[in-house]
């Protein structure tokens, strides 16, 4: 056991006691897991007919098509959110009150309001539109919410660039917009990339909210599957597996980028806690306290 602030290095007696705890807790955990599996078994949830859809090509296609739409929504959302975030993040740093305050209101508002509410309201707003209003509503909602969070990340990222950089740029005669565009943003974006990838995980998880308005995606594909085969438990587990694998891959990417390109430096507001933002429509990434 590595050194810890919580307890001293254990001696032989303590180590024996810990081994005992280990055995006891292993038994308890195995019992809990066993109880769940037994319950599923007893209610015949492992029956082949419930799992068969997931090895049937037709159903796999339905799910993959849903996955394609989901990933598409997430990609649109992240691109839109980064654009939104850069515009509003920079606007929040503006010298002009008339720019700064509206940007502040918009960012604070969309960070405080549940994403699901925004998505549903947008959907009603687009109701009579041609095309695919549900998908558009989902993406718009994701952009507004994640964009607001990214605006905060951008603001913090720009503030994290050493002030000497801007001063030097002004000293060689650059204008305000040049300083922002040529000096500050490029450096800030490098610091921000891991935080933005973490936010992409949030956006990906939140695409599941499309379920509420039947926007095409893997959750709605899952709904079709369990509607036909009455296998909600199995479908939910399969969907969960899809999301967990995708998110773990993205987390690994964020860690790799952090180590490879950024080093230890992190955006202050989101530093450390950004990985732990709960989100089915909700992060308070970088709570402004």
């Amino acid at each position: 056991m590595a050194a810890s602030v919580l307890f001293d290095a254990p001696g032989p007696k303590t180590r024996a006691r810990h081994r005992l705890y280990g055995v006891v807790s292993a038994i308890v955990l195995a019992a809990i897991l066993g109880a769940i599996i037994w319950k599923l078994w007893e209610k015949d949830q492992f029956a082949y007919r419930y799992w068969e859809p997931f090895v049937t090509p037709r159903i796999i296609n339905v799910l993959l098509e849903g996955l394609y739409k989901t990933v598409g929504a997430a990609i649109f959302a992240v691109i839109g959110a980064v654009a939104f975030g850069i515009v509003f993040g920079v606007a929040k740093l503006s010298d002009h009150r008339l720019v700064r305050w509206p940007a502040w209101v918009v960012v604070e508002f969309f960070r405080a309001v549940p994403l699901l509410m925004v998505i549903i309201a947008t959907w009603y707003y687009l109701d009579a539109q041609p095309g695919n209003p549900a998908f558009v509503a989902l993406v718009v909602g994701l952009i507004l919410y994640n964009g607001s969070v990214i605006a905060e990340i951008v603001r913090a990222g720009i503030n994290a660039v050493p002030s000497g950089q801007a001063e030097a740029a002004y000293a060689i005669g650059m204008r305000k917009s040049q300083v922002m565009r040529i000096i500050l943003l490029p450096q800030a974006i490098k610091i921000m990339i891991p935080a933005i990838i973490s936010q992409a995980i949030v956006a990906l998880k939140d695409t599941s909210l499309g379920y509420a308005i039947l926007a095409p995606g893997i959750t709605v594909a899952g709904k079709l599957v369990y509607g036909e085969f009455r296998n909600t438990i199995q479908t939910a587990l399969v969907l969960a597996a899809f999301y967990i694998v995708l998110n773990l891959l993205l987390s690994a990417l964020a860690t790799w980028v952090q180590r490879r390109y950024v080093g230890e430096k992190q955006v202050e507001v989101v530093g450390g806690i950004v990985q732990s933002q709960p989100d089915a429509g909700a992060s308070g990434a970088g709570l402004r306290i």
Partner: protein
Amino acid sequence: MDVLIDNADVLFRAFGVTLKLLLVSGLLSLLFGTVLAAMRVGPVRVLNVAGTVYVNIFRNNPLLILLLLLFFGLPKLGIHFSYFNLNVLALTLYTSPFICEALRAGVNSIPIGQAEAARSIGLGFTQTMRHVVLPQAFRAVVPPVASVLIALTKNTSLVSIFGLLDLTARMKGLLNDYPSQLWWIFIGIALFYVVIVELISLGAALLERRWRIA
């Protein structure tokens, strides 16, 4: 505007539902999250691993999928909860890992030298905890725990899909009945959430100021 005033009683009742969900699942998440954190930072290897696995599974899985699983799955296994309890269970299972990670980050933020210094001036285990480690950990933990609770506030909106009449469900109802009043309804109901979120932020800011190193 009228639509909000006419439906004020409905809205305040929905506000009550949202608040009750937040309070019950918030408290349970704090409890279970603390247990998870203890498992992850404790000396027992088996519990470390179990805690890590739980956190990674539940944190990377959308709340909606968890709600689907419990809402449709538990009745199939012959386990029946009220809608309220079911939603609280899902919110708690989902939020606890985030609380756990916030607490763990708090403990990890304390340099090991603090504990070593405490032991070297002769403080015992409980004294080290009480006077040195925990006060610093609490302070470090306030902002992240507050953002988890804010996230939980917003996540309660998902219960509207699963049978509870909270603010978001009422918004949907009102939008159906008064399509022309969309902006009033949306902004009016959003303000309820803004109030809760601002209260949590304010509370956290006060706690932080109180516990700040003088």
